[in-house]
């Protein structure tokens, strides 16, 4: 036993050193694990989506997060052309979903996005205040000067669609206001200021019982197609592809249909 003294002391030293090293390592790895864990928890997928997709994409993002633990989907919601401008200025995003093909085509031409796929369509509907005070039944009723009609300005997509529909029906619509966005049009209708507004089916659905929708057959003249594409230099190319796949899947279609979107014409 006594003969073991020095050795054992030496061993103790080694042991102490080992413990210290282990402690240090544990501390280090402890931090390391923590850091790795928080990095994993903060894996962010940034999805830029047109404002009209707000509610449906919030729903889809939740589905995606449920299926991908540790992934946080951040939605950047704005007008398609505003989002296009941001992407052209180098805003970091992984997926872009547009409300019209023109903005997407422009980004394709700039090589800023991958191959786009159409995932939904949307058409116009007449939104009227609850009870339909002006008794609007058809698109033709909107040309009546007693009906105060609000549309989008012709330079914004919803206004261009309204103009196409009016042209197709041979109508001369005289809106009392040409608003900047669908939201502004809906605002005037829900406030009861306007008797009718031309907005998308999905906007009427999203507004719930604050407005009533009047469908009209001439809406087929202006069908808006929504394309989606992964962004070319995405930080999360794999997740971006998976998100696009979710939107295009049957589940995605069902979700979108729940908010009033129609399936793409032919894919």
């Amino acid at each position, binding site marked *: 036993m006594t003969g073991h003294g020095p050795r054992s002391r030496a061993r103790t030293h080694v042991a102490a050193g080992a413990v210290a090293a282990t402690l240090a390592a544990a501390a280090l790895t402890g931090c390391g694990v923590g850091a790795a864990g928080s990095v994993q928890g903060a894996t962010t997928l940034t999805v830029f989506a047109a404002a009209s997709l707000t509610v449906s994409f919030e729903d889809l993002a939740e589905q995606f997060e449920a299926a991908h633990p540790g992934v946080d989907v951040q939605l950047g919601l704005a007008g398609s*052309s505003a989002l296009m401008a941001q992407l052209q200025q180098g805003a970091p995003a992984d997926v872009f979903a547009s409300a019209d093909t023109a903005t997407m085509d422009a980004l394709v031409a700039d090589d800023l996005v991958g191959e786009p796929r159409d995932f939904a369509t949307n058409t116009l509907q007449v939104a009227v205040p609850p009870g339909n005070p002006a008794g609007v039944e058809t698109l033709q009723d909107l040309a009546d000067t007693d009906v105060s009609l*609000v549309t989008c300005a012709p330079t914004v997509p919803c206004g261009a669609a309204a103009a196409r529909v009016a042209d197709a029906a041979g109508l001369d619509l005289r809106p009392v206001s*040409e*608003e900047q966005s669908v939201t*502004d049009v809906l605002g005037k209708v829900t406030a*009861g200021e306007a008797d009718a507004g031309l907005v998308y089916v999905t906007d009427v659905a999203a507004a719930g019982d604050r407005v009533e929708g009047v469908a009209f057959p001439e809406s087929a003249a202006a069908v808006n197609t929504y394309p989606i594409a992964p962004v070319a230099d995405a930080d999360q190319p794999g997740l971006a592809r998976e998100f696009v796949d979710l939107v295009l899947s049957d589940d995605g279609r069902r979700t979108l249909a729940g908010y009033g979107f129609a399936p793409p014409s032919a894919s």
Partner: protein
Amino acid sequence: MRATTRSTGEAAVGVPRWAFAPAAVGGLFVLLPLVAMATRVDWAGFGSLVTSESARAALLLSLQTSAASTAACLALGVPMALALARCRFPGVELLRSLVMVPLVLPPVVGGVALLYTFGRRGLLGETLEVAGLQVAFSTAAVVLAQTFVALPFLVTSLEGALRTAGARYEAVAASLGARPTTVLRRVTLPLVWPGLLSGAVLSFARALGEFGATITFAGSLQGVTRTLPLEIYLQRETDPDAAVALSLLLVVVAVVVIAATRRGRGPL
């Protein structure tokens, strides 16, 4: 230092040295965005961009409505400032704060409030409709929105000027037998003229830049309700060059108006 002495013409109190650097930073902070905007202007197309039909309609409407709302601000704001500065009644302090509310209110909220007041389904909407007045989507709605946001500027400047001027001269005039209206016309207003003028200029400038309340309350239609700021906002989406050109036009108009009144104020 020399410049200070010359400009005051008296024993120079001078500006503390340390004030120059932050003053310069402040100046740059205001000027640099304007310079940045000017660098983005498509000068080759500037003329045609600012003389397009929609641009001319928007500029004309902006000038007309801003002039009308400045007149409304004067008609309502001068008596308000007089009452707030000269009258002692319970609740005057509270009233003074409430009058300032449109200053801190986001203009969009102001627009919503106006909608609830003058809109078709608003507090006064039915009364107005019976009277055959429809404010919604009319140029009158633009003037209402502009007056709402610009009024506090006139009231504050004038009230400040009235308090600074004090009531001594008015008391003298009254003691000499002048009636209140005569005192106002002959003594008070000449005394606070610079304050009144700068209040009116501020109101005009605020009305010229009004956007949020107008788009919420009045709508947007060329020649009727689409003022220059609304036109800029609309163009920004589709034709950024036009939006930048129009923004510069708005800046120039504002600067010209302010400079012209400053000059007019000089001799007084």
